């Protein structure tokens, strides 16, 4: 059942529901006709009353109040909605796939004041939706949105509004797989892709006829791009604080690239970036990849590296010329109980650990309750407490008078050699311990909870184990002073020991955008004003995550060779011909609209029926 009104065709999904309209209307009219009637009063005879009535003017015609019309109109709308009225015509289902991947951040440097590719894509998208019939239902997909449309069944007007607000995103696109997935949907009459990827130059025979690929990219001459592909912190000595940043650059440029690398670092307050430090000139040949070292003058939680092209060098995307790096995890605390200060032990060279010094004379049980040392592991040098501490601990060169494990008399001599070691244990795995030259050793007797790690000619030289979840390691010889690379074996053993009792991350790192924040934290951008919506960091940069007790820098990068390599971008293939049957457009359902209007009318009717508003409208007879 269909009809035409004002040039538009309408039809019903369930025409039988329209029978409710005349039935309901009749009931409504009858209700209002009888509404004003009085309750009959029995009289002995209406013989004379009838004569009396005939002398009076005729009854007023049925003139219902406003509420009648409100209710009648609501009934009409509800009947139409129940009948599933929808607008027919050329309302088709359109899939609009807009490429907002990172490559669309490219600017046409051949044009003065060139705009980004994304702007061209937006323009093309808007022109396309304007050309669609007003009854079209558009599903809008973005490359950054995955396989789920960000808008479903919206009008061309709404779609135009939506695409106008688009910007490029820090995502890699999977346009081709998205296109194939969308093309498998028989409900789409038309599929349009607007991308900076060129469509495959081949015949469209045998491809899905519904698909149209609109290319809005850069000319090849404008696709030169040099970008930072990776960052790493580096230090000359193992365990030493970083002293340089290794910057990997790639050139996807037809020309030789010249530029300058600079590094900024986050200030101590983590509130901004300090002045840029030393600049390093860089030069890359066409298509080359190279790593450059950028010296770090002072320690910081995080650094930002920027590649500034030389004026003559052309670089299409500037957003991939900045990257961040820092030490993830921060510094771990270890309580050092030692008669010798940390500096003398050389442990201050281990930048990832902060040693809290306690002299053995200060050692008592109250130390373990001190909030400063809460949950921190202990490193005992040349001293042993009366009982095992409540947290993990390492004991280096314990004295003979130890009470918690047996330490035999120190044996000194040049003939002390390591005879065996536990190659499976994380403390001693991958170490060439026989190369360890010991001048003295205190033979140990491992307790029942421990296993022997190192055996020397004089006896057990090291053991380790766990007691009630706490890790304890005992080394019967001194590992100090820590000399880093100068004494790699003991240094590694020391680091292994510390890492075993106090896990820390000594390597540099970053997070990748988009980054989903794991918990409810307040996030600020360091050095710039930026507001956050939701719990996703979508753009690379330096951020400060404020937790309940501390603030921690978040270092976020976006590296995508595929997106930054404009010259090497793949063409976009048309999906194969659709073999199924395209579902005819059903048209725009008017049911939701009618229901809303009917609800509004009924609410108004409810207001009018209120006794406080005297518009109830009883009708009167003569």
């Amino acid at each position, binding site marked *: 059942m269909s009809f035409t009104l004002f040039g538009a065709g309408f039809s019903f999904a369930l025409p039988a529901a329209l029978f409710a309209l005349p039935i309901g209307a009749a009931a409504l009219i009858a209700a209002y006709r009888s509404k004003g009637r009085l309750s009959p009063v*029995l*009289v002995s005879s209406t013989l004379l009353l009838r*004569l009396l*009535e005939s*002398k009076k003017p005729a009854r007023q015609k049925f003139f219902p109040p406003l509420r009648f019309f409100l209710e009648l109109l609501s009934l009409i709308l509800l009947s139409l909605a129940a009948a599933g009225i929808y607008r027919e015509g050329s309302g088709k289902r359109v899939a609009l796939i807009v490429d907002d991947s990172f490559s669309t951040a490219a600017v046409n440097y051949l044009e003065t004041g060139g705009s980004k590719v994304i702007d061209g894509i937006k323009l093309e998208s808007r022109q396309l939706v304007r050309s669609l019939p007003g009854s079209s239902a558009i599903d809008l997909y973005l490359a950054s949105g995955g396989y789920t449309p960000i808008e479903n069944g919206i009008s061309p007007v709404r779609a135009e509004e939506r695409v106008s607000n688009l910007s490029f995103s820090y995502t890699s696109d999977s346009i081709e797989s998205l296109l194939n997935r969308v093309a498998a949907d028989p409900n789409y009459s038309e599929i349009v892709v607007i991308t900076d990827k060129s469509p495959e130059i081949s015949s469209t025979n045998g491809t899905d006829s519904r698909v149209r690929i609109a290319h809005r990219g850069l000319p090849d001459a404008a696709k030169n791009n040099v970008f930072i592909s990776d960052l790493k912190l580096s230090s000359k000595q193992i365990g030493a604080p970083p002293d340089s940043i290794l910057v990997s650059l790639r050139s996807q440029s037809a020309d030789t690239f010249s530029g300058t690398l600079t590094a900024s670092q986050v200030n101590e307050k983590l509130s901004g970036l300090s002045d840029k430090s030393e600049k390093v000139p860089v030069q890359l040949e066409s298509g080359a990849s190279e790593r450059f070292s950028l010296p770090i003058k002072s320690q910081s939680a995080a650094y930002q590296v920027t590649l500034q092209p030389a004026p003559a060098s052309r670089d299409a995307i500037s957003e991939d010329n900045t990257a961040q790096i820092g030490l993830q995890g921060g510094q771990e605390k270890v309580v050092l109980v030692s008669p010798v200060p940390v500096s003398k032990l050389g442990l201050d060279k281990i930048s990832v650990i902060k040693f809290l010094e306690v002299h053995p004379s200060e050692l008592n049980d109250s130390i373990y309750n001190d909030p400063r040392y809460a949950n921190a592991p202990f490193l005992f040098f040349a001293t042993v407490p009366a009982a095992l501490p409540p947290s993990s601990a390492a004991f280096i060169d314990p004295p003979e008078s130890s009470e918690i494990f047996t330490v035999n008399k120190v044996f000194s001599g040049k003939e002390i050699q390591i005879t065996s070691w536990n190659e499976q244990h994380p403390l001693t795995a991958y170490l060439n311990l026989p190369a360890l030259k010991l001048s003295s050793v205190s033979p140990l007797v491992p307790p029942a909870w421990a296993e022997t790690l190192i055996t020397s000619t004089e006896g057990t030289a090291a053991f380790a184990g766990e007691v009630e979840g706490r890790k304890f390691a005992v080394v019967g010889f001194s590992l100090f002073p820590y000399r880093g690379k100068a004494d790699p074996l003991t240094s590694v053993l020391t680091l292994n020991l510390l890492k075993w009792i106090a896990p820390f991350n000594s390597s540099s790192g970053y997070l990748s955008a988009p980054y989903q924040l794991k918990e409810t934290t307040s996030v600020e951008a360091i050095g710039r004003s930026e507001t956050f919506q939701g719990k996703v960091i979508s753009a690379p940069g330096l951020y400060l995550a404020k937790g309940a007790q501390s603030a921690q820098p978040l270092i976020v990068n976006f590296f995508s060779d595929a997106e930054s390599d404009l010259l090497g971008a793949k063409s976009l293939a048309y999906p194969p011909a659709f073999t199924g049957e395209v579902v005819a457009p059903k048209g725009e359902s008017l049911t939701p609209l009618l229901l809303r209007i009917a609800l509004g009318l009924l609410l108004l009717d409810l207001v009018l029926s209120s006794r406080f508003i005297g518009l109830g409208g009883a009708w009167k007879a003569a």
Partner: protein
Amino acid sequence: MLPETFTPRFLRQIEQLRIRSRRAFLGSRQGGHASIRRGHGIEFADYRKYEQGDDPRRIDWNVYARSDRMYVRRFREEEDLSVLILVDTSASMVIPEEDSKWIIARDLALAISYVALMSQDTVILSALGAFHSPKLSGARALHTASTELMKVQPGAEINFLREIRLAASRIRFPGKAVLISDFLMPISEIREALSALRAKNLDISAIQVLGPHDVKPFDEGAHVLAQDSESGEEVELVIDGESAAEYNELLAKHNKDLEQACYEGEITFSQKLPAQPFEKFVLGNLTQIGLLR
């Protein structure tokens, strides 16, 4: 058992009354009414010789003194009067209940029955559509009359004209007929009913009983939907001063038409209005119209 209306004083008063008939009818038994036959009666006709068995009270002693012979007076033959009392039991007689029209009509029927039975007349009670009694005679029959009338539950849907005809068809001997109703029906229907009774050569009296709500159905200013108790017809009205006055005119005209119809049919008519006390109406109005004497 008689209704409370029949106080001892009232009974003593109506015992003095007789049904009055404007015509002589052939009765079936000796009664108190002039008969067309000559015989024992109270209206002197002439003398005859005393015969054994005659009532000694009828001996004319003046004649005996003059003639030394006993003669008795001969009177016009006195026979009983057949009194047919018809009472309307339609719904209009009980709506509204507070008007008590049926009770008044019932009591009127009983009063007339009492008068008739006490003067040795024959009474036939007909509650239209409810029951039709056999010939009742003698004082004891009053109990029967009262019992039957008290049992009547008026309000049924009856065809007034048909019931009148049915009641009239049961009459063997013409006599008196008393029709008690509110007569709130079309005049044409009333005329037909009266004609049916007249066709039986009855001496008819009509008593209209009206209730307060027949006189003034609604207060001024009322907006009502009146429903006829018998037909169910509904009439919606707004009663203002003008319509109240118009109703009174309509009622007066109807009653006048009723009276005219009675007059034309040589039917005595009386109207029991709400304000009139029952006893006074029986002793006064019914006597005035010649139904009782």
